[in-house]
Structure formats: C-alpha cells, structure tokens
C-alpha cells in the first residue's frame, strides 16, 4: 500500500519541486529529478518482491466517481504485468535521468526539462498501474501531454513546435478511438474495471470454447477491440498514424530514448496485453493487428534504410520494431511481445543514448554522412553503440536474438507467409542498423575540421547509463530463454506474465515446435545476421564520399522521402482543412462576423468621442451642468407634475 503511494507520489513531488524551483535550482534540478525516479525504482523493486511472494494485489486509494451502477475507483492494480512495466519505466527512466544530467547540463531550461520528465514518469506509472480504463486514460493523456511538451522543448524553433503539434494531433486521433472503446466497454459490460472485464471475457471464452453461444455477440468484441487498437495505433505509432514518431526526434535525445523508444510508445502493447482476453474474443481484430503490424514493420524498416539522420533511422527502427511486437500480439503471442518490448527498451534506449553521445561529441551534427571514423575518437560510445546494434539486429546470444527469435518461432507456428514477411523486416533491420553503425564509426572522418578538433568522449554521467544498458542488452535474453536452452522452466518471464488475469483466461497454446525446427529457425536467423551484416558492413565501409553524396534515384529516392506519406497526408487532410479554415476566415469572418462586432464597437467608440467633450475636467463646466440639471428638475416639478 504505502509502497505504491510512494512510487506514484515521488515523481510528482519531483515534478512540483522542479516546476516551482525552475531556474533557481540550476543543476540541482537534475539530481532532484533523478532521485525522485530512483525512489520509485526502489519501490518498484520492493513491490516486485511482494508480488512474487504474495501475488497480485489491489491498492484502493479513494472512490472517484459513483454514477448509478458504475463505480469508478481511484485504485492501483499491482500485478505481474504492471510490476514488469513499472520496473522498465523506473529502471530505464532512472538511467536516462542520469544521462540527462550530463546531456542537458548546458541548457538553460534544465529545470523545466526535469520537471517534464518527472511528470512523464508519473503519467506512465498511472497508465500501467491504473486498475480501470479511466485511470489508464489519465496516464494515457498525461504521457501524450509530456510527449508534446518535450518534443517542443526547444520551442523557439518553429519546426520543433510543429513536430510537437503533429505528435499531439496524431495522438488525439488515436485517443478518440480509445475513448470510444472505453464508452463501448461501459455500455456493454457496465464496468470499466480491468479485472471485472477480464473475468467477463474469461467466462465468455470458456462458454464459447464449450460450444455455447456466449454472453455477447462477436461483433461487440470486434468493435470494442478495434476502438482500443486505434488508440494503441496512435500511441504506438502504427500505420497509418506513425508519422509523428520520426518527427518527435525534434526533442532532446534523452526524451527520444525514454518516451519515443523505451516506454511511452509501448503503451499500445501494454493496452492489448492488459485486455488480451477481450482481443482473444475478436479474431478479426487480431488479424487486423497482424496486418497493420506487419505493414508498419516493413514500411518502417524500408524508410529507415534510406534516412541519413542518425536519430531518424533509429526512430523508424522503433516504428518497425513496434510493428513486430504487434505482429506477435496478432498471433496471440502476448508474452513474446512483452519480452521483445523489454529487450527493445534496453537496446533502443542504449542506441538512442549512444546516438545522443555521438551528437554531443559531433557538436550537434546528426547527419551520418558527415560522421565516420569515430571508432577511435569516442571509444566507450563506440563500444556500447556496437553492442546495441548487435542486439537489435539479433546477433546470436544477444538479448534481441532471443526475443526476436521467440516471435519468429511463434509466427512460423502460425503461418509461413507471416514468418517470411517478419524475416524480411528483420533482414532490412540488419542492413540499415549496420549501415548506421558503419557510416558513423567506421571509415574516415567526413566532418569539418572544427568538429574533428572538438571531438570528445561524453562525461561519465552519460557513459555510465550506456554501460549499464549495454550489459542489459547483452544479457537481457536470460529473462526468457527459449525451450531449447534450459527447457520450459527457463521461460521465467513468460511464466511470470501469464499469471495476469487477462492471460490466465486464454487457453494456452501447447503446440511447440520440434527441437530440430527450433534449431533450424535459429540457424536461419544467425546466417541472415552474419551474411547481411558483413555484406552491408563491407559495402558501406568502402563507399567513397562521392558515392555517399550522389543523388538517389528511383526506389531509394522514394525511400529517402519516406514514400511521400507525409506529403500524402498533407494533401489529403491538412490542405482541405486549411482551405476550409481560409473559407471561414475570408468569407464568414470578414463578411459577416467582423462587420457586426467591429461595427458595434465603432458605434460605442464614436458615441464615447462625442460624450467626452462634456467631461473636460474643469469644475466650472460641471457646475454649469449641475445648475442646468437643477433648473430642469425644478421646472419639471413645477410645470409638469
């Protein structure tokens, strides 16, 4: 009880201190912000121990609303899933806070930055700990707000402001879907409590499994889950709402790592897993998720292949990896998706922080075509970035290898075509990640002379999180080793997470692949990594400046322009809206509303102009008016009444 309260309150207190203290705190604000999150992390660890020993528990704080039969309590639900998310959020959050102390040390708005970061951690904790949909929605909107504030952190740059707005609006579209889903839940089930909804869904699942009609029609579940998934699409940057995430790289790099790679964008995955029983009742939605996830995964990877901005590549890689997680959700491999979410949080945070360290060293340069040869200049960053790259491409025995392999295995079990597509996406991932690594660290330096002289390794507050995350990226796979190594009991994370209510309701898929097949799949993945990795390493390592800078043609030109999706949206949605706004402004506003409002104000003004002649400030005139008035009143009373 008290632990959960401290966990939730610590970041909000940090937020308030940093908000009120503002500029006066200076560099202390970083320490306050970090401490607030670290306290939460300690609480999360203690709560983890408690959940291990006594199981899930509810923390009712107070009753929030009570409307006829619907009871909305302000309660935190601490179970295996929320504990897991909590550990990721506060653990990686702490590391990124430490990193930010170094990264933002020269920025004037450091107090504001840490205030926003703490508010984000608070919102994210609310999101994963909320015991009902309304609580989740508070967190959901809170993280959206923090994302907006942090993308537009350097708000003096107009483009950054636009990026922030874009992220906010795109998220609003998804939020509408989520809200509709919540309303449908209230309408259908009469409750918004996750546990109650899950128990209803479990009952229905059991009924349908035994051949009976079930409690509700399938289309109701399809409608609810589709609406919920639209919310997830917005937050987790899936097609067609993904375009905000790459633009979100306008924010400071630690933000990209914390919000736009490791935590917030995984909220969609969390939402689906939290309500897995509902989704299981709607096979159409699961197929829809599968298709959307696969399309996003491949599109994101393809665009990432042709980008030259180091952060943009990583952003598209995030889009692609999130797509892969949704594919796993689509085939019902919920724990595999959560496993990949976890390892992805490790290595993507590492890669982003590494990229931040590179950008820091390169005095703000983000274009990988102007980097190169940083291998010997910033050794620690190079080493950790290389580990991150190996992890994301799924090099054998790294964390990414196990998590990706588990998803691929489940997909293979489901359908060969899906597996093929996922493998293709993984293959493209290998190419573009090795490309980024090679162009950044290998070859010779391509930047300016000043940049070369200025090259320096980042301070220890920045390299320490890199080292910790690198270790996690290497050994993260231990959390959930495949059956092949150590057998079923080694899948600790899968077993641990399958204890939550929504997953308990789902009948376990028992069909496991044979060991030889598993080995085959692993071998295929390994061979792919080795061949494609080395091929692209040698290709990009040897490229000369002329080859790098030559203009792109055909397909790659399309890729460089992100397949013109932004332009498409601009023409399809933004321009008609702008035209409509122009119509209202030039015709309705100028021809109807302005004459009325301006006209009435002009009348008042001219009447005032006339009347102010009387009020000239000389007492004699006032006396004259007074006497005239008195005479008038007197004569009226004498002659009229």
């Amino acid at each position, binding site marked *: 009880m008290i632990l959960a309260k401290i966990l939730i309150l610590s970041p909000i207190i940090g937020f308030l201190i940093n908000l009120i203290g503002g500029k006066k705190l200076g560099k202390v604000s970083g320490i306050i912000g970090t401490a607030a999150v670290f306290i939460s992390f300690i609480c999360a660890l203690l709560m983890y121990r408690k959940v291990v020993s006594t199981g899930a528990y509810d923390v009712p704080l107070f009753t929030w609303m009570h409307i006829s039969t619907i009871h909305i309590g302000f309660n935190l639900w601490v179970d295996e899933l929320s504990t897991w998310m909590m550990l990721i959020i506060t653990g990686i959050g702490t590391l990124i806070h430490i990193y930010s102390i170094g990264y933002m040390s020269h920025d004037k708005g450091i107090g504001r930055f840490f205030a926003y970061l703490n508010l984000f951690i608070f919102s994210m904790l609310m999101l994963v700990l909320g015991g009902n949909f309304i609580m989740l929605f508070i967190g959901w909107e809170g993280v959206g707000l923090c994302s907006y504030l942090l993308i537009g952190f350097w708000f003096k740059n107009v483009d950054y402001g636009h990026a922030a707005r874009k992220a906010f609006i795109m998220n609003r579209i998804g939020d509408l879907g989520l809200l509709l889903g919540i309303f449908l839940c209230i309408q259908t089930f009469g409750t918004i409590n996750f546990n109650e909804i899950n128990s209803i869904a479990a009952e229905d699942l059991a009924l349908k499994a035994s051949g009976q009609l079930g409690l509700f029609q399938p289309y109701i579940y399809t409608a609810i889950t589709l609406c919920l998934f639209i919310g997830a699409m917005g937050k987790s940057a899936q097609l067609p709402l993904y375009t905000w995430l790459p633009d979100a790289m306008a924010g400071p790099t630690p933000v990209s790592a914390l919000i736009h790679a490791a935590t917030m964008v995984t909220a969609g995955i969390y939402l689906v897993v939290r309500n897995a029983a509902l989704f299981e009742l709607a096979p159409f939605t699961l197929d829809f998720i599968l298709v959307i996830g696969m399309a996003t995964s491949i599109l994101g990877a393809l665009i990432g292949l042709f980008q030259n901005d180091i952060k943009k590549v990583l952003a598209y890689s995030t889009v692609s990896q999130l797509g892969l997680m949704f594919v796993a959700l689509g085939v019902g491999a919920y724990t595999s998706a959560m496993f990949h979410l976890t390892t992805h949080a490790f290595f993507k945070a590492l890669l982003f922080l590494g990229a931040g360290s590179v950008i820091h060293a390169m005095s703000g340069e983000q274009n990988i075509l102007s980097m190169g040869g940083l291998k010997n200049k910033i050794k620690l960053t190079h080493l950790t970035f290389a580990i991150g790259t190996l992890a994301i491409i799924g090099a054998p025995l790294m964390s990414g290898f196990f998590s990706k392999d588990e998803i691929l295995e489940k997909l293979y079990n489901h359908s060969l075509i899906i597996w093929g597509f996922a493998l293709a996406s993984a293959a493209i991932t290998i190419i573009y990640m090795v490309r980024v690594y090679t162009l950044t660290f290998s070859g010779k330096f391509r930047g300016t002379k000043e940049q070369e002289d200025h090259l320096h390794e980042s301070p220890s507050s920045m390299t320490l999180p890199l080292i910790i995350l690198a270790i996690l990226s290497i050994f993260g796979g231990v959390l959930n080793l495949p059956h092949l190594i150590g057998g079923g009991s080694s899948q600790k994370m899968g077993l641990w997470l399958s204890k939550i209510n929504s997953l308990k309701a789902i009948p376990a898929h028992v069909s496991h692949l044979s060991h030889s097949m598993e080995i085959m799949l692993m071998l295929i993945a390994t061979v792919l990594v080795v061949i494609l990795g080395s091929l692209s390493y040698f290709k990009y390592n040897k490229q000369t400046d002329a080859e790098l800078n030559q203009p792109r043609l055909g397909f790659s030109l399309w890729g460089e322009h992100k397949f013109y999706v932004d332009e498409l949206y601009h023409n399809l949605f933004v321009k008609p809206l702008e035209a409509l706004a122009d119509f209202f402004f030039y015709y309705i506003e100028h021809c109807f509303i302005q004459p009325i409002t301006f006209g009435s104000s002009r009348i008042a003004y001219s009447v005032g102009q006339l009347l102010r002649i009387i009020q000239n*400030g*000389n*007492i*004699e005139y006032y*006396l*004259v008016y007074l*006497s005239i008035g008195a005479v008038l009143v007197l004569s009226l009373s004498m002659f009229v009444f």
Partner: protein
Amino acid sequence: MNLIGFENYLWLGSALFCIGLLGVLVRRNVIILLMCIELMLNASNLLLVVFAKMFGNMNGHIFVFFSMLVAAAEVSVGLALIVLIYRKFRTIDSSFLDKLKG
C-alpha cells in the same frame, strides 16, 4: 410687520441665490468663489427665515442658527485651504487647478 410683503423677501432671497450661483459659475478667483458660495448660503438662510415666519413654524429659525454656525467653520476651513493652495501653486485661479484631471 407686514409693511414689506413676504413676496418681496422671497424675490430678494432668490435674486441673492442667483447672483451667488452666477458668480460661482463665471468667476475664476477662488476667494470670489468662496464669497459667492457664502452669498448662496445666506440667501437660502434668508428664505428659511421667511418661510418660517410665513408658516409660523420655529424650526426654520433654529435651522438658520445651525447653518450660520457651520458656515463660520466652513469659511475658516475654506480660507485655510485657499492659503495652502496659493502657497503650493502660487495662484488661486481655479482654471489652473486641474491636477486631478484624468
């Protein structure tokens, strides 16, 4: 007593009041203003006495004594103010005393 009719007293009082009012309206010298105000006050005093006599009511007489007493105090305060105004602004022309004009 009725050698001079009440009517004439009323005309005299009204005339005095109007002279005083005109003086207040047209003159700029603050001392003259004060004198004119006094004139108006005394005109009304006179009228009060006349009406009291006309209707045989003693209240009017009492009223006039009070009003004369207050007028004496008022004049002393008014003159003191004028002296201070003169010290401060070196003028007693009311058209220049417009510091409070908004």
